[in-house]
């Protein structure tokens, strides 16, 4: 059971405020390791917070970006992320693997990449996926923030219809939530790994989504993804399919990990977390911790490889 100073229940789904409050608690509980950093704001002006885990101040060290909740209805991803935040903090100096990662690198974790969408799923429409930006001339709101990155923007697997679930937005980075992450990562300049957590259907994917062309590092990424999927499966047998996004699920342009990869972040992965479809996006809360626990082993395998293969 994870230590918690305020009885935050990691086995339950929470409001945005509760998640932000818990991020604050983690930063207070581990002041020498964790801090809550505001990286921007959403369309409806909600703050966007990341937890920064760092054992050394000063020049930006090589870093890992963990992204969750970009599709707001995929609640298991936000829940897994906040569990993971507490896990990173509490395992530092207890687990040699995470300790050695943090002695060499920083970890940035964004549990709610689409705050407006998340609030909307709790107040208006549980199955909402996109942002909540206005589309002039259209009655439909929002763009798909995972089609809005500057990676073959508006190409295959995205729609130019604002009413579509995969609407790419008027231009790359039009969604302030996406731009906030892009600006932060570019300003930092030393990210080596970018992992985006989604649900559902048990997949571990790497670039590209916008083309069936093989990525230059496809072989290494494939091997690593397979090792991570194996580690993940060791907890309770959850089997992941592994492969490039385009040929494993479908062509998808403008995605986060393609942008990351094309901008020099070699270790770029998307995970589709546990959920066989029986529950759709309503994975019962009693599966949050089992999902987070198995995902953790996959993430750790990737992060250890990054630590040992800095470039």
């Amino acid at each position, binding site marked *: 059971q994870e230590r918690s100073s305020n009885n935050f229940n990691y086995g339950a*789904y929470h409001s945005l405020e509760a998640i932000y409050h818990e991020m604050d608690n983690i930063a207070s509980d581990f002041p020498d390791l964790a801090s809550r950093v505001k990286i921007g704001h959403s369309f409806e002006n909600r703050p966007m917070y990341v937890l920064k885990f760092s054992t050394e101040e000063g020049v930006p060290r090589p870093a890992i970006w963990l992204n969750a909740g970009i599709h707001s209805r995929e609640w298991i991803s936000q829940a897994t992320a906040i569990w993971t935040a507490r896990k990173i903090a509490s395992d530092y100096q207890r687990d040699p693997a995470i300790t050695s990662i943090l002695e060499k690198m920083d970890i940035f974790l964004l549990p709610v990449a689409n705050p407006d969408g998340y609030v909307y799923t709790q*107040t208006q*429409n549980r*199955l909402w996926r996109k942002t909540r930006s206005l589309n002039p001339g259209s009655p439909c709101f929002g763009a798909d923030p995972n089609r809005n990155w500057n990676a073959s923007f508006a190409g295959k697997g995205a729609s130019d219809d604002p009413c579509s679930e995969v609407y790419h937005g008027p231009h790359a980075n039009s969604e302030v939530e996406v731009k906030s992450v892009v600006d932060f990562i570019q300003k930092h300049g030393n990210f080596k790994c970018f992992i985006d957590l989604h649900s559902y259907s048990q997949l571990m994917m790497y670039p590209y989504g916008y083309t069936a062309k093989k990525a230059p590092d496809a072989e290494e990424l494939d091997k690593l993804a397979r090792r991570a999927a194996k580690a993940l499966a060791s907890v309770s047998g959850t089997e992941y399919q592994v492969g490039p996004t385009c*040929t*494993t*699920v479908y062509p998808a342009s403008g995605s986060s990990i393609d942008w990351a990869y094309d901008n020099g972040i070699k270790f770029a992965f998307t995970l589709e977390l546990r959920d066989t*479809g*029986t529950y759709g996006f309503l994975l019962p809360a009693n599966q949050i911790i089992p999902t987070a626990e198995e995902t953790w082993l996959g993430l750790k395998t990737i992060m250890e490889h990054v630590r040992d293969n800095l470039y």
Partner: protein
Amino acid sequence: REKFFGDQVFRINVRNGDEISKLSQLVNSNNLKLNVWKSPSTFNRPVDVLVPSVSLQPVKSFLTSQGLEYEVTIEDLQTLLDNEDEEMRQNEG
């Protein structure tokens, strides 16, 4: 708050390119207000679609007439939502 009374989730199995294109035709039809949870892509990947109660009949007819195999994986989405809401209320308490 949007309600989903009687809305169902269909899992549709696609066996070839022809079936994928038939299904794409269905999911791209704006008047049925379908919400695609897993898109038609490769053959060995089932497609999950949220079908609003008002569209159940036309969607079922389309699938049957085109010989597309499907099963209903969520019988009533609102029941799941109500359970989730109840669980969240309990946790808040």
